């Protein structure tokens, strides 16, 4: 599945969330990650993020798509990153 994770986390904890997500997903822009995941990896991410954030103050949203074929991205302004596997 293809997921997009956006988060609004207090500055005290934000780096922990970012570094954790970086191990599984591609950084797209500030507070946004996306990438292909398996079911198990999604569970790992759910659990990992839950442990890092403060349930009262922080918010993390995960958008799950069956496949990136269903994703159409419109970019305005400058793209921060190229996601190609060929670097």
């Amino acid at each position, binding site marked *: 599945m293809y997921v997009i994770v956006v988060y609004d986390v207090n500055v005290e904890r934000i780096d922990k969330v*970012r*570094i954790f997500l*970086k*191990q*599984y*997903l*591609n*950084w797209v822009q500030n507070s946004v990650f996306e*990438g*292909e995941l*398996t079911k198990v*990896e999604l569970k790992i991410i759910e659990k990992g993020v839950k442990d890092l954030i403060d349930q009262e103050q922080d918010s993390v949203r995960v958008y799950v798509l069956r496949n990136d074929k269903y994703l159409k991205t419109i970019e305005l302004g400058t793209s921060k*990153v*190229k996601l*190609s*596997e*060929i*670097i």
Partner: protein
Amino acid sequence: MRTNYYIIKDGILRRKENTVYFINKEGKRALPINKIYAIYAYGNLSFTSGVVSYLARNGIPIHFFNSYGFYEGSLYPRETLVAGDVTIKQAEHYSNKSKRCYLAKRFVEGATRNILRNLNYYSSSNLSLKKYIENIESEIPRIDGYDTIPQIMSVEGHIRDIYYNALDEIFPEEFRMGTRVKRPPNNKANALISFGNSLMYATVLSEIYNTQLNPTISYLHEPFERRFSLSLDVAEIFKPIIVDRVIFKLVNKRMLNDGDFVGELGDMLLSDSGRRKFLQEYHDRLSRTIKHKSLGREVSYQRLIRLELYKLVKHVLGTQEYKPLVIWW
């Protein structure tokens, strides 16, 4: 699913924030550590020792290619899937002459049948291919008649010669090969084939790492020192399916232009832009899926390589006789 990364640019690979960063003067790019399957390094890469041990610990091999695009070596992580009985049985199949020949013949047979599939695809639009196809078909029954490795190798070489001659009938003039020349390739077709074959070898090696097989014990090719020759054996089957089809697409759809090659006739290589195009097509093909007949589900081309290796494990352990993959679609 983990994915392959191909690094063409020059730069530094380092561990930072528990993941892998590729950094050069144009900027930096983070590669999610848990999503890397293997790294193919074409550029001048510098490593920190941190990243090397981190990649190794995560079971990620790095394959190095020199400026010609030839395979140089791999940073092959410590084997985690070890099984003494498989290694012993694998060696047994090597030292027993008839058992070794059986496997060597199957590799040649698999490669040949896949070559025929490629040619048959084009034979309806190009009638001149017919005589090449008949030629190759007449070689197949001869494979089983031989019982020494050099003889089997020579049939294989002969079939490949016919095949490459046949390709010259399909390819537009600027991509004709003449004879197969390596190190360095002398024209565009040879440059494409050399580049692709090196890549295929490394891809098969990544898959072997994920099985219990020992990559140094091979059957068709001699197990030389310092070489993972089992990868050469298995790559034979997949070259026509993966590499050659990538080349057909690039050539027949006229996706390559003069800027994609460097050098002159007699010493021709792919340029950075050419490599980029090739790697993109190669990557797409490895990730493309087909419905597997006996598994009944979608599998990627890359997975097919792994399945082939599992068949080999079953064969050496004596549970199921090995029959090479011949594409059915």
